[in-house]
């Protein structure tokens, strides 16, 4: 193994790829795509609202319908501002009777099963997801009369004069439900908003019926928002839980894409050299191992270049104020701090992932003659990158569970699982060292095996080799 020759091969590979238009298109397009994917929906949500033309049939005989119409047309109540109501905490369903309003402790409604629909848990947090604007037509019915006029409402819905109609009656209120009639029932976001708002209005109405005055009710039922504080070596800091998830997701996604895309490029590169028959010209002067490592190194450097460009772009974009100026960022999306340790680990995990999988891809490229032939086995690494995605939520939720730790120590899974763990909570040093050690060993084995297949495979043209044949190359090369 002569490093200088691997360097020549790597240099050619790097320059040839950096100079393509495809590289620059991908470099610009991928972050744009991710950005659109991540920021787009929330941006759309915050800038646009759904228009729902609604008819309310009020058969309660209590004037509740009028109150609901007013509340729905007034729009969403303001999101909870944490800390605004320090005293009033006990609004949980079961504790309804215990309205003291004076306990200064931090008892945050321990069991709140009934209150979920009451809006306290959902209201503030989901505020961004439920910008539905209602225009309401009210129809008051005599209590007791059912079904009258329903056919006409259905016809209006079919003529698109209204989108949906709801009916409130005494039986429904007693059973804690109301009817929703519409041609399409798949508008879950609108339904959820409607359910929340109706529950709120009915809840207040009930409290008033129970003899509380309206001003006091406002103070008592004000929703709470969780404020997350990350504990880390550098000190606790208020940080969005959603932002932590966002970070873990973005880093995971970058690794995932990087490993698969660049692994595939290695395979295509080798197939191309084989296909264009230049491989034998090269292998007369450069040994297969030098050739393979040069190629892997060159392409790895291309990937790192691309990621460095992205990181620089990210640094510019997240510079204080800039992103906030472009997008109205909800307070819970406060950007997490990107520690140098995080970057270092990202870099190391990328190297691990790249060399583990790219060696395999290089082997496929050498063994087969065309993309089609190699495609069957090219899906294999996907299993190892999809598996962490399957467990992603569990890992982020509990990065130190036995499952998370176990998965992070299996070399093909390490890069992605460890990335999720590190982005969520820095694992103990011994686990990091163990994971890197195992990866290094696995890479050494992969290089050894793949170099052998490479050496034989690159000279094999024509017939598609069977797995047994490839195994024989490993043993006898």
């Amino acid at each position, binding site marked *: 193994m*002569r490093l200088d*020759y691997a360097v*020549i*091969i790597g240099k*050619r590979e790097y320059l*040839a790829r950096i100079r*393509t238009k495809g590289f620059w298109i991908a470099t610009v397009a991928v972050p744009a795509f991710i950005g659109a994917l991540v920021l787009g929906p929330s941006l759309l949500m915050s800038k646009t609202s759904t228009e729902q033309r609604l008819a309310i049939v009020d058969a309660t005989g209590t004037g509740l319908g009028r109150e609901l119409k007013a509340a729905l047309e007034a729009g969403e109540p303001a999101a909870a501002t944490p800390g605004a109501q320090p005293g009033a905490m006990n609004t949980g369903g079961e504790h309804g009777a215990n309205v003291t309003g004076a306990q200064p402790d931090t008892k945050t409604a321990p069991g709140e099963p009934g209150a979920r629909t009451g809006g306290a848990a959902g209201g503030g947090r989901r505020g961004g997801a439920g910008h539905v604007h209602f225009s309401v037509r009210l129809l008051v019915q005599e209590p007791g009369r059912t079904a009258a006029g329903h056919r006409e409402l259905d016809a209006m819905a079919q003529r698109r004069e209204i989108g949906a109609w709801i009916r409130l009656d005494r039986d429904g209120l007693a059973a804690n439900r109301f009817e929703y009639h519409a041609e399409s029932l798949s508008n879950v976001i609108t339904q959820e908003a409607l359910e929340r708002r109706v529950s709120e209005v009915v809840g207040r109405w009930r409290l008033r019926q129970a003899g509380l005055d309206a001003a006091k009710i406002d103070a008592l039922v004000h929703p709470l928002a969780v404020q997350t504080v990350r504990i880390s070596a550098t000190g606790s800091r208020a940080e969005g839980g959603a932002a932590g998830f966002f970070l873990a997701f973005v880093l995971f996604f970058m690794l995932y894409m990087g490993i698969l895309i660049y692994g595939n490029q290695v395979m295509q590169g080798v197939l191309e*050299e084989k296909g*264009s*028959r*230049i*491989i*034998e*010209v*090269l*292998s*007369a*002067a*450069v*040994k297969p191992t030098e050739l393979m490592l040069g190629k892997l190194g060159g392409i790895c450097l291309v990937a790192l270049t691309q990621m460095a460009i992205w990181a620089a772009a990210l640094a510019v974009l997240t510079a204080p104020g800039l992103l906030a100026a472009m997008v109205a960022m909800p307070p819970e999306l406060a950007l997490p701090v990107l520690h140098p340790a995080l970057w270092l680990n990202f870099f190391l995990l990328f190297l691990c992932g790249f060399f583990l999988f790219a060696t395999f891809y290089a082997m496929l490229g050498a063994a087969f003659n065309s993309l089609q032939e190699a495609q069957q086995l090219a899906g294999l690494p996907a299993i190892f990158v999809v598996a962490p995605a399957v467990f992603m939520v569990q890992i982020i939720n509990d990065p130190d569970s036995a499952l998370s730790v176990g998965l992070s120590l299996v070399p093909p899974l390490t890069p992605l699982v460890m990335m999720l763990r590190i982005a969520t909570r820095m694992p103990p040093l011994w686990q990091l060292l163990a994971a890197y050690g195992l990866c290094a060993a696995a890479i050494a084995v992969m290089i050894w095996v793949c170099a052998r297949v490479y050496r034989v495979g690159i*000279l094999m*043209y024509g017939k598609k080799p069977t797995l047994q044949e490839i195994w024989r190359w490993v043993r006898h090369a």
Partner: protein
Amino acid sequence: MAASLELRNVEKRYGDFVAVARLSLAVPAGVIFGLLGPNGAGKTTTLRMIMDILAPDAGEVLLFGRPRRPADLRRIGYLPEERGLYRKMTVIDQLLFLAEIHGMKRRQALPAVEEWLARVELADWGQKKVEELSKGMQQKVQLIGTVLHQPEILILDEPFSGLDPINQGLFKDLLLEYRRLGRTILFSTHGMAQAEKLCDHIGLISRGRLVLDGELKEIKRQASGNAYRLVAPIAPADLERVKALPGIEAVLPRDDGARLLLAVGASGPQLLRRLVEFLEVSEFRSEEPDLEDIFIKAVGDAA
């Protein structure tokens, strides 16, 4: 003459199939050596073993009079039968890269690249991508890539296959120029006529074995007197009779008759007497044996 390249009992097997069997061969310095044999004889495998692309199962490869070292391979210009270029690279980048992997510095390679491009009339094409070139032009680029680093030995696997006539001429001139410079050329071919015109030395291999090798002039001298040209109408049944005659080694049918190869010691006049018994012979004369005759005879003797 010192051998610049030598194989000692080199062997290569693929499972039960013996591709090259105990092959020993010495290529003297400063000659054009033709490695001849039909397709599948083991020529490419032999050349690949010399280049350390394949590892022999047994035996030894010597270069420049000593066991081969990795650095020696850079003093060789190797053109495999399966050849190619990076399609997306420019001609100059491509050649500089090939020079680099053969141990040259880009700075010293650049003037050589320009000189060569001018010589083969591709000076205006240096900045073009390889895929924009015609096939004939690509062959020229490939040829330059093989000789750019001024190799002391050229090893060419079927160099003339697929070449257009202009490039065949270019190649031939290059080989002759190399010989004038005292460098060594080993090339394989299954085209006997080509080899006959160019080679000083030949080695004939068949089924992985060397059946004959030596100086072409000497081989031809030894084989002379053994080939006869027969002009006569020959029916298929008669052909079988001719083959069965004593002293006949091989019969190569021709439009107007046949070419007859005789066993050592067989006499032409005696054979003629037998032939006239059943054929209308209009002509029968001794001919200079060509390489094909020699090859067929050698393979026959070895079997």
